[in-house]
Every structure is written in C-alpha cells, then in structure tokens.
C-alpha cells in the first residue's frame, strides 16, 4: 500500500512538473528579421549629424540603419532638411563618422 502511495505521489509530482514546463515561455525568443541599430543609437547619430552639419535638430530623422562594415558598428542614414547624411556609430554610442552624402 505504501509502495502504491509512493508511486501515486511520484506520478502527481511529475504531472505537476510537466504542467509547469508546458506553460513556461522560453526566454530570449524574439528577434527582428533585419538587424537595425537600436533607437537610442539612431537618435544619437541624428543629433550629432545636426550639430556637425549645422542644421536644426528638429529637421533631422534617422530613416534606415544596418550593421557597419567594422564589427560592433552601425551605419545610420539620416534625413536632413535638404539631403541625407551617413553616420557610423559603435555599439557603445561613440560616433565614428558623419558625412553628408546627398
């Protein structure tokens, strides 16, 4: 009798574990289909482009981004009031370069 009670207890415990496991969402499950620069880095680029190119900060906006050629960097396309700039920033938030491209 004690043995069957033990088996029943073990089975109940296993069921509980299984139930918990089936409802626990896996961690770190989401990514974007394309790697873009984090929003804060994009905006740092826009702000720096406005400063270096002497345009109003209210008139600039990041419009696209992608990983840079050098590891740990991103390239950010910045729309200016007139034309566009390319900003390169590293993942620590340091501006590598800013250049007007059109």
């Amino acid at each position: 009798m004690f043995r069957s009670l033990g088996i029943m207890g073990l089975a109940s415990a296993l069921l509980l574990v299984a139930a918990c496991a089936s409802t626990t969402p896996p961690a770190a499950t989401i990514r974007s289909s394309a790697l873009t620069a984090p929003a804060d880095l994009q905006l740092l680029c826009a702000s720096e482009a406005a400063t270096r190119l002497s345009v109003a900060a209210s008139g600039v906006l990041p419009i696209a981004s992608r990983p840079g050629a050098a590891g740990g960097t991103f390239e950010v396309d910045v729309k200016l009031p007139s034309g566009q700039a390319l900003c390169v920033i590293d993942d620590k938030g340091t501006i590598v370069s800013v250049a007007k491209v059109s």
Partner: protein
Amino acid sequence: MSGISRRRMLELSGAGLAAAMLGAGEAQAQAVYSQIYDAKRKTWIDYDPKRAMQYYKAYGSVPEEFKRQTVSFRTAEKPGTIIIDGDRHFLYLVRPEFQAIRYGIGVGRDGFGWAGIVKVGRMVEWPTWTPPAEMIARDPRNAQWANGMPGGPENPLGARAMYLYEGGKDTIYRIHGTAEPWSIGLNISSGCIRLNNDDVTDLYARVAVGTKVIVLMSGAALYRGV
C-alpha cells in the same frame, strides 16, 4: 514620390496614402518583422498573426521581450519624450538618468508604416472608434460603426488613445490600446501604434498633451519632410 513603387502606391490608402503624400520616403523599402525561435526545429521562424495567437493561447501573454520593462537608453531627448522603434516593435518613454520604460507594440503592416516627428495632441479614455471610409471600403463589416463604435473592451482602440498631431493638425494616427493583445510584436495595423490595454493605460498616465513623439521605421514613408 521617389522610393515608393507603383505597386506600393496602389496598396496605400487612407492613413498610408496620407503619409506617402506628405513625405515621399526616400529610403529603400525594407519591411522588418519579428521572428521567434523554434526550439524544436532549432531555427528562426516568422512571428506572424497565427503564431502570435498560438503563443498567446499557450502562455497567456506575449513573449518576454514585448513586456513592459525599464531599460538603459542613451539619448539627448528630454525625459517624457516618446520614441517608437517600429522595426523592433518597441515604444520607449524616456526617463531621467539615461533610462526608459520600454513597451511592446504592434505597428503598421506593409505599406502602412510611417516615420516622423509628431506630438500628442489629444488624449481620450475608452475612446470611440470611427472607421475611416477607406477602412469601410476594405472591410464592409466596419460599416455598422460608420457613426462611431462606443468605447469598451471590444473597441479596436482599447482602453486609451493618444491622438498624434503635426503642425496642430490631426495626423489620423494614434497610439492606442487593443482588443487583440496577442497582436503585439506584429506589423498589423493601418498605421496606428497599438499597446495592450494595461500598457497603454500605464503610458497614458505618464504623458500629457504636447508630448513629443519620434517614430522610427526603416524605409517607411515620412509623415513630414523632416
């Protein structure tokens, strides 16, 4: 209109068309969407509405990444500014000391995404939803609400709405709640930014009319020619 293909222009209507007309995206079109890791197959798969619904049904919530959380955020923007990363499906509310509250969002589907700098012009609790004519044309079931659907749990705008204005005019875009909480993380709307009702209620309590809103989205039409 450079940068927007004829096909895309034909797909645009309502909010999307308004965006394109006002800003003519010069960026290359690049639809970015969410993917989820399939541990069984050991591969990344598209996080589409069907999978999003399955996930929500299985776990009773959206994936952890889309839940409200405080994160580091290096920015010169003032605390209280809202920054939307449409590619990664995050809305940031800038806080002091280089921090932000991050919320998961749903954004405009292909052809309906946009980017720009706008402001919160009006705020409403349990808003009435009135589908624009273009939305009724796309789905005649919406005709019953042509004069407005009262606020409530079934209302597509959810518990709160922040109406986005530019130059003192309504853009017709909103940050709002949703009756479809599983849809966070998807490109699914007609250009509005949706949060689940708990999150939009939290955000609503932290912002005011006049709040600056910066919307980033790769390759999207610019709402204004910034």
